[in-house]
């Protein structure tokens, strides 16, 4: 088990390292001079040279990379020009919003996906199954930004039940906070719920067709136990990796959701920093995104080990 997790940790660390090189290179290799991009239109050559020095651009690429990575490991991601503050401090401010959004979406998604996935598989070919499959198909095909706009149109504009956007931290009132996070979470969680549901249904069907279910049934184990315990436990294992993978993407999907609902999270920050060409901020945010993705994958591997005795050994 330790060997497996150590192996996964090593290869994920490798991925993170590779990704950081890629981020660094993409940002450096872009056409145009970041120093120029950072300056106002009428900057003098002296000002640009000064900026180049500040950015460390006159040094060799490997040195620049080492400095940047060393800084990043120590929590120093540079300084944002747009906001005139440290990137790490800025992220520290915005990250909780995105986390709040992602976790609420995750909770909503799993609350929908697990029961429907299991019940659809257990009632394969019946009305409930068809309904679940159609709803799931709608869910995965729905563009998150369109769904967001439609929900604003319906729940905020027409019915006036919920606010159309903005963020209220849970610390300043749970009810108000929930009202603000609900629409964005549903918009973000729908596609995720549909994906998980479809995956779970497929693996459940696979497991329910296996011999050990038939044998357990032949020995009087009740159908409910077979479905909710035997089959779900086995089906969870292949589903999990994919779930973790898409959760990483869910965090990314937050870009669109945060833009639509005006949430001051990392996603919107990334969008704004890109439009403003705030390179240190872009670098830091993308790196963080990848790191979170890698961390989630590692967490899923650990869960995988807990669920599958064949790996635990």
């Amino acid at each position, binding site marked *: 088990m330790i*060997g*497996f997790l*150590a*192996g996964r940790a*090593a*290869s994920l660390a490798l991925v993170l390292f590779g990704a950081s090189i890629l981020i660094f290179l993409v940002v450096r290799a872009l056409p145009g001079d970041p120093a120029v991009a950072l300056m106002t239109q009428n900057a003098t050559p002296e000002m640009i040279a000064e900026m180049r020095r500040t950015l460390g651009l006159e040094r060799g690429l490997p040195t620049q990379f080492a400095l940047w990575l060393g800084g990043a490991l120590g929590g120093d991601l540079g300084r944002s020009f747009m906001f005139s503050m440290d990137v790490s401090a800025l992220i520290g401010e915005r990250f909780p919003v995105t986390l709040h959004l992602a976790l609420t979406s995750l909770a909503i998604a799993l609350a929908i996906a697990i029961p429907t996935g299991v019940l659809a598989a257990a009632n394969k070919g019946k009305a409930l199954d068809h309904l679940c499959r159609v709803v799931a198909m709608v869910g995965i095909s729905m563009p998150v930004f369109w769904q967001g706009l439609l929900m604003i149109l319906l729940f905020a504009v027409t019915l006036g039940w919920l606010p159309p956007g903005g963020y209220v931290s849970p610390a300043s009132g749970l009810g108000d906070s929930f009202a603000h996070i609900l629409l964005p979470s549903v918009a973000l969680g729908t596609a995720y719920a549909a994906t998980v549901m479809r995956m779970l249904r497929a693996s459940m069907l696979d497991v329910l067709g296996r011999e050990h279910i038939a044998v357990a049934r032949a020995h009087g184990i009740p159908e409910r136990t077979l479905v909710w315990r035997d089959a779900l436990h086995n089906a969870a294992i292949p589903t999990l990796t994919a779930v973790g993978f898409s959760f990483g993407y869910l965090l990314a999907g937050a870009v669109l959701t945060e833009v639509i609902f005006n949430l001051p999270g990392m996603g919107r920050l990334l969008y704004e920093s890109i439009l403003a060409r705030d390179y240190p901020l872009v670098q830091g945010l993308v790196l963080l995104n990848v790191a979170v993705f890698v961390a989630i994958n590692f967490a899923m591997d650990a869960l995988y080990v807990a669920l599958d005795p064949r790996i635990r050994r």
Partner: protein
Amino acid sequence: MKTPLLELAAVSKHYEVAAAPLAGLLSERPKVRAVEGVSLSVAQGEIMGLVGESGSGKSTLGRLALLLEPPTAGSVRFAGADPQADLNAFRRRAQMVFQDPQSSLNRSKTVGEILAMPLQVHDVGASRVARRARVAELLTSVGLRADAATRYPHELSGGQRQRVGIARALAIEPAFIVLDEPTSALDVSIQAQIANLLVELQQRLALTYLFISHDLRLVRWLCDRVAVMYLGRIVETGSAAALWQAPRHPYAQALLAAATAERAAPSGIGGEVPSPIAPPPGCAFHPRCAFAGPRCAREVPASRGDAQTNVACHLYDGGVA
């Protein structure tokens, strides 16, 4: 004595066990010793049987004989020469029939395409027409109708598929064929048909077979000589009749007893084949052997006898004490 057609000299095959990326750094990777120091010779025109239970290494040995996998140690000689020298020529003379007729035929190709493939690879049959004629001839020779060429494997029964597999092996007129459990996936009534076909082809085309099987009755019926494998090693070699009448190695005895039992009775060799990753020291069979003595745990028994008939057991080599 004539030069044997196939000669394996002390061949071994070890596989590295797949492990986590870091595990290899901490300790030496465990190895599966699938085949360990096997010497075997098959004479021209002979049917050599190779029996053993799962994990005995018999299928691996069959692949080594055809150089479908490189041996870790030892050498393979074919018709007195090193087949590596001209692998392409060797492939034309040595062929294989596989166990699972479902998996051994490419499901997206027609029978005709499957049979034409070896002809294309070796540039046999100048024209498309000539190839088509050869395919029809092959199909007839294995007891199928020539129009089977247009069918897909899934449209055929298991027995018919195995006939196609045999026809493919015959396509480029080899001298030697490894048959890897060619009947074990088939029903009893079809097994007999295929076994008869194999014998008929062997006699008509003067073929030499290495016949791998776990079915002792079939091996006795089909083979001239038989080698018994246990955990990667050959424990006994002899004529099929002699082995059936009076097996000498205790494992061969147990195998025969289990295969011919008429009432439910224990095999007398409790337990199961140990893992080839950590085979027992000395004679690999000693933990399950009723006759084992201290020497069996210490010393690997050498094979005694000649190339035709031999046994590797301390019982025939000064005792087990």
